[in-house]
């Protein structure tokens, strides 16, 4: 379904080559866009990634199964937990380990908190991309409250390294539920404020409505997943379609929209934050308070996982996050492939959507697709 953008004759003098990034505040993360502009209009866009390439998949092939556990979370900086969970999920599946129920609840709590934190950061990002940096200040601060919870629960702010193959690394601290509820209330109040300030804002609407429209029929051929897909009217969510962890026991609504533009995508994410808070409250109330949180493990120093291959996926904030693991029965991973949703959102889709937009909208468009370069290049 790949249709190349129409060729541009640079020698005609009508066009200007413009590099956005990597040193550019309007770019999410460290990547760059090579824009060809005609006046204020973008006529061609090429993405350049790899500024964050660390060769994770190579590094993981030379580490043992337990040694990979600290490294995977580094793949997506603002949202490391999904990596931890998915890595644990694929390893557990191939090793035949079932993590205990309590661990599954704690993992769900962890993932949903992460989703909320990540969305808060994103919400600030979309505000800042369109010039409303006050929202950015507010949301990043509230994200920090969630990071405090993470620090308390996992022992670290950013790279939690908490969901370990076999379960989780520790029980919830004393009084955690209460503090978590408190933070959720604060975040909920903030979200209502943000709705007033950002979503009911004439300028924001003027900027975002109609920007970056993704036609419905483009969704599958471009591999678009997650909120970007739901904003185009597809009611698809892995938490509903292929429930993992304890999502089948939680009540939440699937949020969709039909306009499929930047505003619709923002609105879907905004609503999902409310759903996330709803799920978190259920988690806190219904989680088992005792019992094991780690399955019986072999000695991890020379842990050999039987040969096999599998693919596990989870619904992260951007869409389908997946781990494809191939083992050969040795102490080392044969091959890991990390499927990040940004891979297609930030490259194939971005290159397509950028054409015809105003240069000033590129940053906002990119934020609206919610891309994280590190998961593209890994």
């Amino acid at each position, binding site marked *: 379904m790949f249709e190349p953008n129409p060729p541009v004759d640079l020698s005609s003098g009508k066009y200007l080559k413009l590099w956005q990034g990597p040193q550019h505040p309007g770019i999410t993360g460290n990547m760059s866009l090579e824009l060809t502009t005609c006046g204020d209009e973008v006529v061609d866009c090429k993405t350049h990634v790899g500024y964050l390439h660390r060769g994770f998949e190579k590094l993981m*092939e030379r580490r043992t199964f337990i040694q990979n556990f600290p490294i995977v979370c580094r793949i997506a900086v603002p949202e490391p937990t999904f990596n931890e969970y998915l890595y644990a999920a694929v390893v557990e599946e191939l090793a035949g380990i079932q993590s205990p129920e309590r661990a599954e609840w704690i993992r769900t709590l962890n993932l949903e908190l992460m989703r909320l934190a990540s969305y808060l950061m994103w919400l600030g990002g979309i505000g800042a991309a369109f010039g409303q940096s006050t929202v950015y200040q507010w949301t990043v601060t509230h994200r920090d409250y969630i990071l405090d919870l993470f620090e308390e629960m996992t022992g670290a702010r950013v790279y939690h390294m908490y969901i370990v193959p076999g379960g989780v690394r520790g029980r919830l601290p004393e009084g955690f539920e209460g503090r978590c509820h408190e933070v959720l209330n604060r975040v909920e109040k903030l979200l209502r404020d943000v709705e007033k300030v950002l979503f009911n804002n004439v300028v924001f609407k003027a900027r975002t409505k109609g920007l970056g429209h993704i036609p419905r029929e483009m969704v599958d*051929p471009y591999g678009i997943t997650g909120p970007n897909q739901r904003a185009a009217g597809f009611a698809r969510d892995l938490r509903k379609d292929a429930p993992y962890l304890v999502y089948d026991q939680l009540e939440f609504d699937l949020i969709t929209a039909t306009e499929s533009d930047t505003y619709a995508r923002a609105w879907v994410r905004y609503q999902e934050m409310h759903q996330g808070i709803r799920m978190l409250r259920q988690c806190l109330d219904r989680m088992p308070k005792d019992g094991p949180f780690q399955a019986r493990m072999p000695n991890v120093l020379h842990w050999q996982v039987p040969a096999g291959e599998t693919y596990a*996926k989870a619904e992260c904030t951007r869409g389908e996050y997946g781990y494809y693991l191939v083992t050969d029965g040795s102490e080392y991973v044969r*091959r890991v492939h990390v499927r990040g949703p940004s891979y297609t959102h930030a490259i194939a889709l971005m290159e397509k959507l950028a054409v015809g937009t105003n240069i000033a909208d590129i940053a906002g468009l990119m934020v609206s697709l919610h891309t994280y370069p590190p998961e593209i290049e890994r």
Partner: protein
Amino acid sequence: MANPIELLQRFGKNFAISEIHEQKADLTFFKVPKEQAVRLLRELRDDAGYTHLAFLTNIDWIEKGIFTLTYMLHNYDARHSLGMHVDLERDNAEMQSIHGLWAQAATYQRELREMYGIRFPGSPRLDEDFCLEGWDQIPPMRKEFDTAAFSLERFYSREGRGTEDPREHMKGLLYPTHTDEPSSGGQ
């Protein structure tokens, strides 16, 4: 929706499908020869509802001398994924491009070109740098490339390190004369 095994058997009439392996309820792997792969992908997409390409990647089986491409397809209605394996010769690996089927495949193929050296003729921007820049070694994801040795050689490691094995250390400390094993049968 037919169950995946039946589906694969149905396709098996026209395609040489082998090594069907049901990993879990919603994930089945199978293998197909290189020549038939793209045609099968197209039919799976158009006729069987596998409209979503989750990823395309490669496994290096250096000891068997092959690359195994994995195409992960997903059917949203059936909520089922198919992992399609295609074996390539490791030397001079080349595969048909599927960027016409899925737009994001072009990026995956660029990555495979760079990381493994697999060629996908016709794929856009295939030979441009993807993640690397000015790379002058063999493609890094190939198993024979030793990243630690390369890192040490090119980027160095900071001085001032040095470790001792507890066992050897104690040997040297506590029973040094118990270590010299004369060669067997020697004079």
